[in-house]
């Protein structure tokens, strides 16, 4: 799901606003369309100039990336708060909760003062399981997200930068991986690997699950990164660096990668969401890690323990709710990044809102038509 969304959003190839984005002239309201166009062209001009100047000088100043940071908006703050709270819960929760596999409690207790989220069929404390499970899921999400980011970056940036035969081959591989459905591949690989001898304790560890999820989910970000790298390659400052005799590795890491930072961040966040969801599905089917507790293994326990049939909602609702909240929080952060990558997403609604306000204030602006 998430991959398609990035494709449609970032595929439109928005310009990266550079360090000069804030200096665009604040045109008075009047002709919204013209103003927007002027503002945009001004922004693009200053952006290109600023990035080019910064790169050509190759000076590392503190403020260089300020234009690449998302603006502080409601979405960003909400997302950060949700993700921060869940992360804190995953880190600190296990310290205060009782051991997650302590079965010295009454079974299937509903939520109460003694056990905040009740107990499972085996008498495990759900709150404690949830804390450990959040930690486990976050670990898998981060590792898999990193693996996917590195692979996607390698395939996408190299294909986009080098072009020609290398591009054809790398893009072909990317597209093949993209169309082959992910979860079935993960299930098949997991089924083989987890039942092999010789891997020892690694065979059903969360590290292996994370690696499998990462290796199968990088293609979407490779497509997005390739498109952006291709467009960056044709900029003047990259051409200048090439003419100056810079090595390709240096051009990629010094000139191109810094401008991909917002996209890379967005792709990493999507990778984490995808991996957390993927782990949940995999574990729910009984293919998850056996040694550690994750949100997915909790759901699997709830399934085998007939939680739905017996009405023990406190057993299966919290893990899913944490996953949904984590995914929503990360997506909100991604929206903020998206508005940096594609300024139209931020400007157009703001302009439309301004026009409507002006109409209400009786400034003689038409209140019908496409822009009202």
């Amino acid at each position, binding site marked *: 799901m998430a991959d398609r969304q990035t494709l449609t*959003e970032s595929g439109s190839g928005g310009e990266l606003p550079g360090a000069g984005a804030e200096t665009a002239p604040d045109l008075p309201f009047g002709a919204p369309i013209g103003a927007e166009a002027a503002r945009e062209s001004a922004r693009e001009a200053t952006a290109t100039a600023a990035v080019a100047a910064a790169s050509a000088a190759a000076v590392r100043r503190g403020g260089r990336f300020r234009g690449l940071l998302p603006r502080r908006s409601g979405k960003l703050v909400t997302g950060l708060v949700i993700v921060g709270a869940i992360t804190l819960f995953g880190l600190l929760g296990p310290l205060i909760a009782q051991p997650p596999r302590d079965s010295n409690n009454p079974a299937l207790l509903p939520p109460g003062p003694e056990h905040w989220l009740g107990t499972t069929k085996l008498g495990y404390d759900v709150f404690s399981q949830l804390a450990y499970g959040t930690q486990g899921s976050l670990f898998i999400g981060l590792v898999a997200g990193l693996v996917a980011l590195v692979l996607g970056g390698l395939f996408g940036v190299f294909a986009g930068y080098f072009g020609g035969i290398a591009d054809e081959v790398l893009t072909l591989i990317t597209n093949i991986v993209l169309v*082959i*459905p992910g979860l079935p591949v993960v*299930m098949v690989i*997991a089924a083989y690997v987890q039942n*092999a001898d010789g891997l020892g304790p690694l065979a059903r560890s969360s590290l292996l699950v994370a690696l499998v999820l990462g290796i199968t989910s990088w293609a979407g970000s490779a497509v997005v990164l390739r498109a952006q790298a291709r467009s960056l390659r044709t900029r003047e400052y990259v051409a200048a660096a090439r003419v100056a005799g810079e090595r390709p590795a240096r051009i990629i890491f010094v000139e191109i990668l810094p401008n991909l930072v917002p996209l890379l961040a967005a792709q990493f966040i999507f990778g984490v969401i995808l991996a957390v969801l993927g782990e949940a*599905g995999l574990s729910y089917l009984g293919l998850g890690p056996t040694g550690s507790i994750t949100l997915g293994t909790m*759901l699997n326990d709830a399934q085998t323990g007939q939680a739905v049939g017996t009405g023990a909602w406190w057993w299966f609702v919290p893990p899913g709710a944490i996953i949904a909240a984590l995914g929503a929080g990360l997506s909100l952060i991604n929206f903020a990044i998206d508005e940096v990558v594609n300024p139209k997403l931020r400007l*157009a609604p703001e302009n439309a809102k301004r026009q409507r306000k002006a109409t209400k204030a009786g400034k003689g602006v038409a209140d019908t038509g*496409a822009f009202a």
Partner: protein
Amino acid sequence: MSFYLRRVAFYLVTFWAAISLNFLLPRLLPGDPAAIMLGKLRRANAGRPLSEETVQAITAILGAEKGTSLWDQYLAYWGRLLQGDLGVSSTRYPAPVAELISAALPWTIVLVGTATVISFVLGIVVGAWVGWRRGTWLDHLVPVTTVFQSIPYFWLALVLVAVFSVQLGIFPIIGGYDVFEFPGGPEWSWAFLGSAVWHAVLPATTIVLSSIGGWLLGMRNMMVSTMSEDFIVTAEAKGLTPRRIRTKYASRNAAIPSLAGFGIALGFVVAGSIVMEQVFSYPGIGKLMIQAVQGLDYALMQGVFLVITLTVLAANFVMDLIYGFIDPRVRHNG
């Protein structure tokens, strides 16, 4: 024309890659699935020795004894596939894998197909409207949809079952049809069709609810981007009615990337519905896959994986051809 040739070539290569991946996975990953599978089949056959034919089929699919070259194995594998022979299942011995798949496939295709189309159309229509009314309270719908999008399919299914089946008792809990009313299996009658539709309501709702957010959001964002293009300004200046601008100018162009994403999304929907079918015990291809994986029925697992991959490839291929027809630019830029 070269656009179509390129697309056909790409899908031929992908088709070959998918089948080769299917060939290589059991051979390159650690473990000896062929030996495990033959052991399982022997037990299923009550200890009697297996027929030479069965053993050959399994070794062709999952890996021969040491000594046979990989290339010979590869040829034997293709030979089996071209005959439509996917081996014998051990969990449902002695049913052939191909037969099990062809019985399960229609359930999934009808359910997932219908639900995906409903979700796509709804998402595009609502997304176009929300994008059109950008800057109003409707923008707050965007964060709400992300919550739905981040909910795991199967968890939503669990919650729906808990509320509508266990608590309220409106919908059936599991299955694709009423097995007590129709003990003889699926049949062509209105009563059976009604039972099947009734059983499909919750699974379909699950798919629609958890996939609509992506469509809505993608369409809304494209609509917002498209609305600031010059040709929209021109249309407005010409004095065209807003309705005409919305439907004929903005929506049509904004929907193009969503259409391109449709094929890729199908893969995710199929994947998501695997876990969903487990929740509902729906007699589709996902349930079969789960049975195979849990019972270490490697022949069945390989077969189902192949069929899922090829179905998604075929859907993507069709979407690509349609896309080339809708958007002439991709035909010319290749």
